[in-house]
């Protein structure tokens, strides 16, 4: 299991929460690299927000995706949900404040560290959690 923490430089990007914008970019890249992605959200409202952003994303970098409760039987290349995954996928993009119990089913996990100080506590907790699981997370700054 590979875990990457993206250190956000600002909390807003292109008029939307920065981690939503970045999720889109990553989904576009991962889809083109033939990776199946699961975007895990804290609630339905956030899931729909990610869905909306992804749908409005550059047509040249289109990302076929579905929300939990819609789409083809095996799911689209990218699935956005506030519930556990229904099918096995390679990549988890975790937008919640905790490490989900199903994290170990993914070979690659992407996390975000908010720019604002008050948001960093949860990220630190998750970082620790991964270490306890025996994984040394990488940190990187988004391009």
């Amino acid at each position, binding site marked *: 299991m590979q875990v990457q923490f993206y250190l956000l430089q600002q909390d807003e990007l292109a008029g939307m929460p920065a981690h939503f914008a970045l999720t889109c970019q990553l989904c576009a890249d991962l889809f083109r690299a033939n990776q199946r992605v699961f975007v895990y959200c804290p609630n339905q409202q956030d899931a*729909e927000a990610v869905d909306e952003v992804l*749908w409005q994303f550059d047509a040249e970098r*289109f990302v076929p995706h579905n*929300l939990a409760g*819609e789409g*083809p039987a095996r799911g*689209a290349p990218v699935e956005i949900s506030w519930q556990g995954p229904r099918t096995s996928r390679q990549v988890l993009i975790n937008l919640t404040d905790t490490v989900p119990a199903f994290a170990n089913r993914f070979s690659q996990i992407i996390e975000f560290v908010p720019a604002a100080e008050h948001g960093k506590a949860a990220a630190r907790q998750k970082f620790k959690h991964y270490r306890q699981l025996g994984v040394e997370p990488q940190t990187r700054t988004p391009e």
Partner: protein
Amino acid sequence: MQAEVKAAFGPGGALEKAIIGFRSRDAQLEMASAVCDSIRDGKALVVEAGTGTGKTYAYLVPALLSGKKVILSTGTKNLQEQLYLRDLPRIQSALAQPVATALLKGRSNYLCTFRLTQHYQHVPVQDAALIQDLSLIKKWSNETQSGDIGELTYIAEDSKALPYVTSTTDNCLGKDCPDYEECYLLKARKKAMNADLVVVNHHLFFADMALKDTGFGELLPSMDVVIFDEAHQIPDIASDYFGETFSSSVLLDLCRDIEIACKTELRDHPQLAKTAEKLASLTKDWRLLLPEDPQKGNWRDLFQKAEQKVALSRISDVMQMLYQVLKGSLGRSDLVDSCYERLALLRNRLEKLLDVDKTGISFWFDTSKRHISLHYTPLSIADKFQELVFDQPRCWVFTSATLSVDGGFDHFTRQMGLGAARTLQLDSPFDYPNQAMLLVPRYLPEPTDAKMAQALLQLAVPLIEANEGRCFFLFTSHRMLQWMAQQLPDYIRLPVLVQGSTSKRVLLEQFVQLKHAVLLGTGSFWEGVDVRGDTLSLVIIDKLPFASPDEPLLQARSEDARLAGQDPFAVVQLPQAVITLKQGVGRLIRDVSDRGVLVIADNRLVSRPYGEVFLKSLPPMRRSRSPQAAIEFLTAIHAKSGSEPSKA
């Protein structure tokens, strides 16, 4: 010529002076200049000009200034008239260019005085409406100059009388006709021969090309420039005409004409009447082999059935017999002579349609309530068309608002054998992100799911209410259309119009007149529909418009693609659906001030990789998955345009 064209379009130019509200646009000038180049060097040109670029003027101006002989072909008779009666005179007077122009329609649009006299005297069927229409036509025939059936606005477009007063290639007597000198069709053709610019339609163009139905075929060789508008329709139309059809109705028409001859000129020939009667009865029996409900299918498969083989071998035998009998009566009656020629043609066609082992052809059949038709469609028209285009040095221009798929023209040029053509893509000047929204709602069942109908209803009701009607609700299946037509009136208090209840023209008139109506139709409904302004600001489509896989032409093309080692979905089905959707968006947004929402109730657009091809091909509308966002968009449109009628 380039300089002249530029001057005409430019500031202070002829168009600006003569046409109120004309504004020069870069895209329009670019197209006009490309048309000039093609006229000069004779290279084929394919131009996609997005809605609102002003493509009509962009080809008319160079065409008129070129001093060459021009054929202009467009999609329908209505568009033909619009071009000929509105756009052409405007540009002509603006350019002060004296050019002889002519409008030429297909054979069935002209009165045949011989057939009118014949059927007015011997009414074929005792039917009150028919008799009334025939006498109205008789009266009109004394007044008309052109003999153009289009003048008969007081007779229904589908009046039963029309086939009796117009001719077909099958029943035209040609030079032997007693009314030959007075023939309206010939007059129209003569006028066209002498004109410098002739406006035709695609059906006429290809019908003549394929049937060699004298007249237009003679016209083409003398022409220097051929311009096709609405060129996206050409592959389908051309495929039809490069194919062959054999139908029970043509056979019965023939039998009926022989019967008429036997009752008048050949009373002494009972054997002829009997043989024709026999053929008519066998033909009717043949139709009865299939169920009454109309259907379509693969003729190769159906012809494997013994009953079909028997029926057709009987028909073929009696046709042979009739041929011999007619041969013995040649020279006694013009009608009989023409029947003899028609029969020869029909025998030839039947032979082709029974040779189902031939490859490279799609064989299919369809039935109506009373008739059956067999069709033969070549898999590819590229060769035939290429031959036509490059046969003689001549300039060819193909234009439409919807030709490209995913930014390329391969789909069109490959089908047409136009690989060497120059291509040009001009974007619409409309501000799509602010004028239009594309909504693909969340959480819809998959398109084939039984729960879809209910979900569609729940989705549509609040949208239609928010928009106070002004909505086209389009379906890919008749079943869903009928279901919705039953349900919808229980949920909304707005007029609901349903396709099929009356003619398309009347439905559209009602839709415009009612202002706040919902029109339920099939997907093809909006091809060629022009509803400007606020009367139409919401279009809901139940599914992505992929043609049904049992559509014979689609099957033929898919087979062709497979043979060429390509993926039929990617090269046939997908591009065709993209063009259909693009057409639809063009109907919703006709003008810089038009606004509207397009709803596609099919999550495959979001969840399948091919969604990318659609998004990249459609104009850059704002996108959302939230019906609430669409409702706000619609409310804002109508608040802005100041039309706040009472709430339903």
